[in-house]
């Protein structure tokens, strides 16, 4: 008996849940129909808004792509930063060997290329063209050299400077030079691009929310009679709010799709130029577009912004208005 009652109750509960769900679905589809109806009614205005938002999103996206590709290029082409350690001329072979093991013990060190004094002299002769001039000297003026190549993790200006400072303090080391001018410049450059992209993105973010907010405000304004009637008939704030939220989502979604297409067009445009330039330099560099992950992330993010902007605008309107 008790069991039966329980079952009945459960079934009723399920039915209620089902009814609630279908009611919810119908209200959502009604709101979407409203959005579509509104879009068709104000076609030109909607398309203009979408264009503005799309361009606002395209700019930071292109900026991001620039930064990404500069970064790739920097990693691809920048000469590996080396530490050149000049050893004391008076060291014996055993002492030099000892020193090299000391260098190797550092975790930042990937590889050491050692040039003895005579090897250094040979290299200088081949490269400089002053070979005969050196013969005039009694003594070999060149010290022996250890070229330290840092590993991937240590290829950062700070770490390399730290390593340089440590190496100079070791007995038997005359000097340690960091050949990083190229590297520093490139890092600074990519950092600058990064900061620029961030700043532009931030401004564009504000612009996008304002444009969406304003568009929603205009929609509310053109539909205030509808809102009033809805309130008179007994619609909840949530019901009135819904079409406007969807409007925000709809506009930002379409805008993002358009922005992604525009960025892709930009990439295709610039690719041919890069091809020509890199052909002149005798290398091949392929520009990278947006990956699927990045596209999805941008889509998600901007849609959320659209939703938020719509929510804030509509809530404020509903709070202010009293039915008259």
């Amino acid at each position, binding site marked *: 008996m008790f069991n039966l009652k329980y079952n009945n109750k459960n079934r009723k509960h399920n039915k209620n849940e089902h009814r609630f769900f279908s009611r919810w679905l119908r209200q959502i589809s009604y709101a979407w129909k409203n959005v579509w109806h509104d879009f068709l009614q104000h076609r030109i205005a909607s398309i203009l808004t979408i264009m503005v938002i799309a361009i606002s999103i395209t700019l930071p996206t292109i900026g991001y792509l620039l930064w990404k590709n500069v970064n790739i290029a920097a990693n691809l082409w920048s000469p590996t930063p080396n530490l050149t350690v000049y050893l004391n001329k008076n060291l014996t072979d055993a002492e030099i060997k000892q020193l090299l093991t000391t260098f190797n013990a550092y975790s930042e060190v990937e590889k050491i290329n050692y040039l003895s004094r005579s090897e250094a002299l040979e290299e200088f002769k081949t490269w400089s063209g002053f070979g005969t001039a050196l013969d005039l000297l009694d003594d070999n003026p060149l010290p022996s050299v250890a070229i330290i190549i840092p590993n991937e993790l240590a290829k950062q200006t700070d770490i390399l400077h730290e390593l340089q400072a440590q190496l100079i303090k070791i007995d038997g080391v005359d000097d340690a030079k960091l050949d990083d001018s190229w590297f520093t410049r490139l890092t600074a450059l990519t950092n600058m691009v990064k900061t620029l992209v961030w700043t532009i993105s931030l401004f564009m973010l504000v612009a996008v929310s304002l444009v969406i907010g304003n568009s929603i405000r205009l929609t509310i304004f053109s539909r205030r009679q509808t809102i009033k009637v809805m309130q008179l008939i007994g619609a909840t704030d949530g019901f009135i709010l819904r079409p406007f939220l969807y409007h925000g989502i709809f506009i930002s979604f379409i805008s993002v799709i358009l922005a992604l297409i525009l960025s892709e067009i930009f990439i295709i445009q610039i690719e041919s130029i890069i091809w020509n330039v890199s052909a002149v330099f005798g290398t091949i560099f392929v520009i990278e577009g947006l990956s699927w992950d990045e596209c999805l992330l941008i889509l998600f993010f901007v849609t959320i912004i659209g939703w938020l902007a719509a929510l804030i605008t509509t809530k404020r309107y509903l709070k202010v208005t009293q*039915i008259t």
Partner: protein
Amino acid sequence: MIQFQHVSKVYSGGKPALQNISFTIEQGEMTFLTGHSGAGKSTLLRLICGLEQANDGKIILNNIDITKLKRGEMPFLRRNVGMIFQDHQLLLDHTIYDNVAIPLIILGKSSEEIRRRVSASLDKVGLINKMQFYPIQLSGGEQQRVGIARAIVNRPSILLADEPTGNLDEKLSKDILLLFEELNQTGVTVLMATHNLQLIRRKHHRILNLNHGHLDGDTHVQP
């Protein structure tokens, strides 16, 4: 049932609109609310459907004290009260059918049920053959009837009408009044505000008369 217990309403600015109003309208009763312009007829109706807040007293609707309802509960009150306005408050960019369907859409009814009930409602007011028209294509009397159809589509137990015949000639006014009487016969409580005494003179319904915010006449005879 509509019950007012010592209700007062003062608009901001200090102008008293209603002072110490008390009356009871039983379920299924048909009542007229009369009085000069500015006597407080509209305010009284707006209090019943929660468009205004009373400053004092109690308003009891079907055993619920609506002066104690929160803002978020108001929509649910309005769903149980059909309200008809002088300027009918129709959506001009929607068809007659859509206008009447809105209360049901708000409730999330299925399209099948909406179709059935909207047709029944439009049939009752005699506009079944005009449901694909837009409000602008209809005459004043027909627009008012659309407003009535919208008010009764959700089968409310209480129907409030604020000067529904205000813009109509005598013939149309009589038609509208007949319609309200028909609805009243199905058990709906009807409270209709009007200043057209000519129209209701020969009817034997209860009349509440408002004068400068006071209730100074009630033809209702206690049995």
